[in-house]
């Protein structure tokens, strides 16, 4: 791990503790469920539909309304005016109207039929079950087989085309040895630790919503659109987010319903989803059916790579995952054919879950590739090294940087790949697996301001969010390094829509986008300070030292007192803006972060149970802004990938379109005891083509490819190749 280049403990790259850590452990961080309004909120309870599609024929709310403590029962009959959901012009999914309780149509199982607003949760919940309603059911459409997915989506998340390829795939697949395999992945949810929660208030003019959301500017657009309100009358606050993972990119039912309640009653209304409600009232990741074909010569050189993905898409909500993009970039081949098709289904909202496309695409694709290596009896690490691409396989663009081969080589070395030993302990056999991952890097337009106050404090404002990733900390580090000041002189204000609009958190673009905007703001502030000091342009600011501003070094050093410099400014403070936009010049380069994953598992040959012994990840993602938070994110991703390989599966009942296992007892994800040693190392190479900071996206890299290493290790241990994720004991047992 490269040492921090500056002596500042909060310099860029330092493994610095979270600046908001103390607030969080003291319970003082104001998450969405903490009331920040003057008046205690009323509590809203969601009553949901029991079938995925149909028309509400009868809804009787009298009994509920008569209950003690109930202030209102809101249904489509008495709800506030809203712009209908799913109008053709509404193409921006985070900003589009999210109207609900506005018509008698049921859009999905669990779709809100009524909102009960009462003094207490218990009152609202009890009254909720007294609402008597009948839905005339309509037929339910779900994706059950590959051929049903016929629609080519207009675009794929991340800006990809639905179809991409290279060369003559039929001809390439007909030479050498051919491999065909179909993998499936199930519905999955992120179900972040903090369930979706909002408290809204409406004072007759202004709608204020405290919520848990990853991107604020589009949340304002969404509320403006849904309720036909001017944007300037809407404020969204989300200073702390207890995990988002894509499920909070946009606003969901809690925010809309709390707003409906507030608009209806003109006082604060809180809607906090229960864990069970999160499964239907917030988005999930759809299941996928991934048909693949490959050809390879006897030396293991890939000829053709074909990946046809079938996935569901929610009605009137244009989101499709790039499940096949791994096939477009992981390896070079004579011909590549990657296609995505969707079927519009009657499911709850389908949207991003960490690493859309890649998380489940790499899971299937890297397991499929492993099948080829094993069939040809080529070491899976060598097979991959032999096939990875020197330039982007389809576009031919140079990579801005690409350390994939180094990740495989160094990762194998640190993991001890060549020294791996198969052992049998009682009924348990161990096995080893490898996989790789490539995750596209993006910059999204972002703005920030920084203010130097006359007390010496530097205050950053941006509507960026910290979803547990460490944004508060890395932005502090960027400012601390630039002005060479202690972290305690820096205040980062996030999660307020009144602040300059940022990228928000998502798509692994948050740190580089918002960080570059803050860096640019710092540079602009330096320049303004130089001007105040009457210095020639380019006389670089070095340090803020107590109440002194020190310019230059050695012979050219000049000191000015803060009060002198700020004396003639408005409010005795100096503010500068910074922004960033995708750099078109550098877009000629293919920008990716990359990973090599290694895993050892133990499989019980009686029961088929799989336990993980260890995982190692080798990652390259440009310059690391904070080795501690980056490492934590990568490890979290590795663990989640393992969880996809072995555990996670959200079951949907085809009879009513609703999910079945809506709690943490039955929606299984990895627990501590399932996970063995998790280690990683980072091959750090700043990528200044990616952004001025040299950093690249990291949030989705850890999960990309990590599950396939587990799947491949299971095969290595006992010869069981499970193509229907997750790899549960029954499926392994069936192959023993």
């Amino acid at each position: 791990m490269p040492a921090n280049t500056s002596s500042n403990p909060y310099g860029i790259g330092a493994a610095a503790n979270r600046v908001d850590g103390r607030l969080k452990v003291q319970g003082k961080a104001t998450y969405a469920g903490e009331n920040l309004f003057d008046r205690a909120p009323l509590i809203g309870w969601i009553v949901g539909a029991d079938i995925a599609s149909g028309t509400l024929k009868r809804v009787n709310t009298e009994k509920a309304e008569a209950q003690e403590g109930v202030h209102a029962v809101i249904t489509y009959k008495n709800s506030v005016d809203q712009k209908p959901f799913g109008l053709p012009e509404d193409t921006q999914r985070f900003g589009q109207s999210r109207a609900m309780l506005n018509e008698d149509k049921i859009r999905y199982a669990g779709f809100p039929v009524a909102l009960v607003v009462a003094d207490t949760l218990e009152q609202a919940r009890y009254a909720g079950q007294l609402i008597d309603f009948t839905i005339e059911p309509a037929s339910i459409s779900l994706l059950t087989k590959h051929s049903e997915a016929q629609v080519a989506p207009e675009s794929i998340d991340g800006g990809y085309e639905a179809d991409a390829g290279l060369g003559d795939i039929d001809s390439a697949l007909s030479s050498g040895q051919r491999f065909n395999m179909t993998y499936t992945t199930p519905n999955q949810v992120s179900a972040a630790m903090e369930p979706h929660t909002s408290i809204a208030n409406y004072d007759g003019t202004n709608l204020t919503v405290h919520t848990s959301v990853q991107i604020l500017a589009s949340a304002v657009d969404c509320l403006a659109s849904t309720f036909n309100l001017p944007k300037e009358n809407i404020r969204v606050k989300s200073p702390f987010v207890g995990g988002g993972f894509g499920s909070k990119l946009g606003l969901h039912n809690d925010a809309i319903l709390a707003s409906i309640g507030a608009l209806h009653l003109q006082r604060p209304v809180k809607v906090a989803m229960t864990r069970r409600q999160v499964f239907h009232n917030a988005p999930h990741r759809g299941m996928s059916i991934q048909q693949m074909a490959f050809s390879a010569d006897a030396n293991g050189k890939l000829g053709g790579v074909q990946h046809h993905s079938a996935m569901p898409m929610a009605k009137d909500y244009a989101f499709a995952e790039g499940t096949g993009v791994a096939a477009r970039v992981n390896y070079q081949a004579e011909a590549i054919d990657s296609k995505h098709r969707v079927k519009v289904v009657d499911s709850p909202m389908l949207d991003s879950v960490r690493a859309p496309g890649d998380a489940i695409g790499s899971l299937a694709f890297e397991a499929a590739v492993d099948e080829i290596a094993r069939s040809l009896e080529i070491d899976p690490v060598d097979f991959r090294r032999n096939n990875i691409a020197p330039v982007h396989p389809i576009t031919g663009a140079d990579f801005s940087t690409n350390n994939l081969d180094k990740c495989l080589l160094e990762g194998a070395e640190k993991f001890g790949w060549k020294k791996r030993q198969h052992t049998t302990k009682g009924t348990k056999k161990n096995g080893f697996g490898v996989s790789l991952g490539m995750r596209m890097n993006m910059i999204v337009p972002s703005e920030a301001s920084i203010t130097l106050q006359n007390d010496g404090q530097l205050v950053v404002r941006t509507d960026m969010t910290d979803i547990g990733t460490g944004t508060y900390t890395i932005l502090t580090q960027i400012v601390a390094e630039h002005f060479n000041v202690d972290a305690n002189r820096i205040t980062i204000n996030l999660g307020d829509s009144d602040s300059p609009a940022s990228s928000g958190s998502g798509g692994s673009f948050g740190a580089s986008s918002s960080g570059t905007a803050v860096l640019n703001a710092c540079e602009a502030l330096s320049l303004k300070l130089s001007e105040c000091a009457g210095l020639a342009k380019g006389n670089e600011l070095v340090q803020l030292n107590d109440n002194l501003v020190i310019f230059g070094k050695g012979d050219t050093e000049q000191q000015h007192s803060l009060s002198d410099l700020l004396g003639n400014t408005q409010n005795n403070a100096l503010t500068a803006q910074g922004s960033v936009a995708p750099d078109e010049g550098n877009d000629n380069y293919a920008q990716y972060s990359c990973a090599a994953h290694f895993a050892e598992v133990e499989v019980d040959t009686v029961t088929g149970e799989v336990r993980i012994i260890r995982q190692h990840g080798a990652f390259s993602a440009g310059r690391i802004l904070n080795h501690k938070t980056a490492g934590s994110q990568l490890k979290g991703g590795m663990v989640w990938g393992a969880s996809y390989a072995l555990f996670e599966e959200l079951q949907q009942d085809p009879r009513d379109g609703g999910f079945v296992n809506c709690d943490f007892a039955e929606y299984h994800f990895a627990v501590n005891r399932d996970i063995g040693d998790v280690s990683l190392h980072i091959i750090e190479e700043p990528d200044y083509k990616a952004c001025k900071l040299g950093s690249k996206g990291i949030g989705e890299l850890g999960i990309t490819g990590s599950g396939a290493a587990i799947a491949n290790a299971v095969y290595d241990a006992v010869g069981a190749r499970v193509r229907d994720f997750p790899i549960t004991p029954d499926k392994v047992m069936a192959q023993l």
Partner: protein
Amino acid sequence: MKPFAVFPLHKKHDLVQVESFEHSRFLAGGTNLVDLMKHQIESPDQIIDLSGFEQAYDITDSEQQVTIGTMVSNTELADYAYQQPGLSLLSQALLAGATVQLRNRATTGGNLLQRTRCYYFYDTTRPCNKRKPGSGCAAINGFNRNHAILGTSEHCIASHPSDMATAMTALDATVHTCNANGETRQIPVRELYRLPGDTPHIETHLGADELITAVSIDKTPRGTHIYQKVRDRSSYAFALVSVACTMQVKDGIISDINLAFGGVGSQPWHAQAAEEYLRGKSATTELFEHAADVELSSAKGSGYNDFKIPMLKRTLVHVLTQASEHQNQHPEHEGAIYAR
């Protein structure tokens, strides 16, 4: 809001003072009941709070038996049983269940009466004969991965989720109860539960006013104890299948065998047919396979849980093999095989 009354019970004779037991529930650790109340699956008019039930927190050890108070936590019981070779099956089962946090709250009596984890039982928007008698069973033709293969009916295929109760069943524990008239009785745990039949909402033979006060286990030598639980993840997951077994082998002959299965029955499943088949015979793999077939002859999968039949057979044969081999090598062995 539906209010409920709380009756604090301090000693078992306080039951006499309870006016009515209609829509009444005993509250012990609350790890299950409170959850069910939050989901409005249980909505009692009255809670009889056992937290102050002072006589019920002790484990007493006599020459013949160990008696465990109904409020003894799973954690305490697991620790106690770990130190007693004759109870090690119980310790293994308890430690395989839930999480430390849950075991700290969950109680001995409460765990015997744990409700099913059937997904449809937990979902108030869907039919369930156990939750709402007569509404139908969504699980039979639905997603039924965690459901029972033994003892089911056309009205209910829910499985009993308790690990502890499975071990208690194998150990032939006795449930001690007291009712509102002050009458006490002892029920073998193997006779505590009712098959679902057409009344799956009635799960035991206990009266509405009948409180489990303690559970006792005879201190007889039972040989080698093995509790093997197969589950989707290594902690905080209910059993796909589990096997609780104690076995004594003398001169190659199975002289004593106790067997119960978890995760597969509508109640903790006493594998009586398999026991009878095995008892007095010489321990061979073939015998074990036949014993599994005998017990599983009535097993019925519902689709997603079909795998439980071969999984139970494999696990049972493995457990029986382990136990008999250990008995052959260590003829007087009592308790768990801790160092494998």
